C-alpha cells in the first residue's frame, strides 16, 4: 500500500460523512443499538483514531473475546513456566512474556534464571532448534492467524528437538459462546478482518443462520471500521442478518484454502478453557496424533507442575466479563489501582491488544494532553 492509498483509507471528509450516516441510523432506531467486535486490533484502532468518542449516543460497541493473549488460560501459561523452570529453553511471542499464569509469568521465570526467548516469527522456532542439540519448546499461542504459521513450521521438515506447546485458539467457536450467553444482548458482530483472511467470510454463514445476527467483516483503518458499523446498523434496523465482507482487499468468501489445509493437517479442534470466559467446545487447537513426536504436552507430560492457587487479586479480576461484553474496564475495581500495566492482575492489562491496557493507555494519553 502506498502512502497515498493509506491516506485514502483515512480521508477525513468521508470519515465525517460515514460518522453522520451512523448517527442518523442510530437516531432513526430510536433506541440503543448494541454491537460487538471480536478483535483486539479493532479496539486498538478505536483508541488510536479516537473513534469511541465519535460514536453516536445510543451506539454501544462492546468488546468481545478478541485478544489471544487475554484468553490464553492460566494453566496453559503455568505449563510453559513449568518447562522453563525445569531448565528447557522456551520460545514465545513477546506479548505472552508478562502475562501472569496462576502465580507467575514467563518473565518471572526468566528473572529467576530460566531460559525464555522472544521470537517474532514462527520460523525462528525451527531455526533455533536446528542450531541446538537440546530440546526447544515453542509456546505457540494465538488465533488462526498465528496457528497457520505454527502449522507451516511443522509441515516443513521440523527438527526432531522442536516441541510445540499449543495454546492456539479458534475464534469462531468463541463467538458462539457469546451469542448463547443470555446476558449479552448483542445485535450484530464486527468480525476480525485478519482472522477472516484465513477462514474466509463464508465461515460465518452458519453462525448468522443459527443466531439470526448480522456479521460484517471489517478492516482496521478508520473508514473500514466506520463503513462496517454503518452496514451493521443498517441490517439491525432492517431486521436483516447477513454476512457482509467490508474488507474485500484482504478477505474472500472461502479464505486462504492453502493455509486452512495446512492448519487442519496439523491441528484439530478440541474443547478448552478460554481464560475468564468459559470452556469453549471446539475452542482450542491441539496437535493431531501424526505430530505427536513434536507435541510438548506429550513429550513432557510428567513434568508439568500441579495446579496452582490463583494469585492475590486474581479472583476480583473482571477480564471474563469484559471479554464477553458484560462489563467495561472501568467497571473493574482493580482497573488503574491494583491492576496497571506495570503490575497486571488480569491478562487484559498486559497485552497491547487487551481492552484494559488500551483503555489505560488512552486515559493516560488524554490526561497528559
Amino acid at each position, binding site marked *: 500500500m502506498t502512502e497515498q492509498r493509506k491516506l485514502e483509507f483515512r480521508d477525513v471528509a468521508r470519515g465525517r460523512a460515514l460518522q453522520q450516516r451512523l448517527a442518523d441510523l442510530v437516531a432513526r432506531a430510536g433506541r440503543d443499538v448494541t454491537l460487538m467486535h471480536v478483535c483486539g486490533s479493532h479496539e486498538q484502532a478505536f483508541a488510536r483514531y479516537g473513534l469511541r468518542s465519535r460514536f453516536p449516543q445510543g451506539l454501544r460497541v462492546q468488546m468481545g473475546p478478541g485478544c489471544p493473549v487475554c484468553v490464553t488460560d492460566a494453566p496453559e501459561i503455568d505449563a510453559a513456566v513449568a518447562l522453563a523452570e525445569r531448565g528447557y529453553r522456551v520460545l514465545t511471542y513477546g506479548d*505472552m512474556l508478562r502475562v501472569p499464569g496462576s502465580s507467575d509469568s514467563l518473565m518471572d521465570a526468566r528473572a529467576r534464571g530460566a531460559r525464555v526467548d522472544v521470537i*517474532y516469527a514462527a520460523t525462528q522456532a525451527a531455526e533455533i532448534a536446528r542450531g541446538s542439540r537440546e530440546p526447544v519448546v515453542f509456546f505457540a*499461542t494465538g488465533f488462526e492467524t498465528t496457528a497457520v504459521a505454527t502449522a507451516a513450521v511443522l*509441515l516443513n521438515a521440523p527438527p526432531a528437538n522442536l516441541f510445540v506447546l499449543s495454546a492456539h485458539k479458534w475464534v469462531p467457536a468463541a463467538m458462539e459462546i457469546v451469542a448463547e450467553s443470555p446476558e449479552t444482548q448483542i445485535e450484530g458482530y464486527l468480525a476480525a478482518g485478519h482472522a477472516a483472511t484465513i477462514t474466509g467470510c463464508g465461515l460465518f454463514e452458519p453462525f448468522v443462520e443459527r443466531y439470526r445476527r448480522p456479521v460484517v467483516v471489517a478492516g482496521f483503518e478508520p473508514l473500514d471500521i466506520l463503513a462496517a458499523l454503518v452496514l451493521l446498523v443498517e441490517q439491525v434496523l432492517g431486521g436483516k442478518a447477513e454476512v457482509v465482507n467490508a474488507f474485500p482487499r484482504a478477505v474472500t468468501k472461502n479464505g486462504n484454502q492453502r493455509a486452512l489445509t495446512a492448519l487442519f493437517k496439523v491441528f484439530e479442534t478440541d474443547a478448552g478453557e478460554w481464560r475468564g470466559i468459559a470452556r469453549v467446545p471446539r475452542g482450542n487447537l491441539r496437535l493431531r496424533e501424526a505430530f505427536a513426536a513434536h507435541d510438548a504436552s506429550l513429550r513432557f507430560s510428567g513434568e508439568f507442575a500441579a495446579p496452582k492457587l490463583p494469585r492475590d487479586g486474581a479472583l476480583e479480576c473482571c477480564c471474563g466479563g469484559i471479554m464477553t461484553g458484560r462489563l467495561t474496564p472501568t467497571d473493574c475495581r482493580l482497573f488503574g489501582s491494583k491492576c496497571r500495566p506495570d503490575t497486571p492482575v488480569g491478562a487484559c492489562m498486559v497485552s497491547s491488544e487487551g481492552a484494559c491496557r488500551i483503555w489505560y493507555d488512552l486515559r493516560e494519553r488524554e490526561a497528559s494532553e
Partner: protein
Amino acid sequence: MCLGVPGRVIEIEGSTALVDFWGVRRKVALDIVDEDVSLGDHVLVHVGFAIRRIAPEDLAETLAFFETLTSEALEGLER
C-alpha cells in the same frame, strides 16, 4: 501477535521473500500464501508468514466500495 502487517515484496528466493515494511526489511515465508507472489506485490504478513497476496485490483475494489458508500453518505450530508 495477531497484528497483520502489509509489506511489499522486493526479493524472492524459493519459498522465502524479502519484504519491505515501510523501511524495515524482513524475510517472510511464502509456504501458505494464497496465490503466487511476484516482485512488487503487497502481502499481508503474520508472525513471519505471508497469509495473503493483496492484489492491486483488490485494493481498487475496496476503494470503489468506499467510494459508493461514502458518496451516498456525502449526498446525505448535503441534503
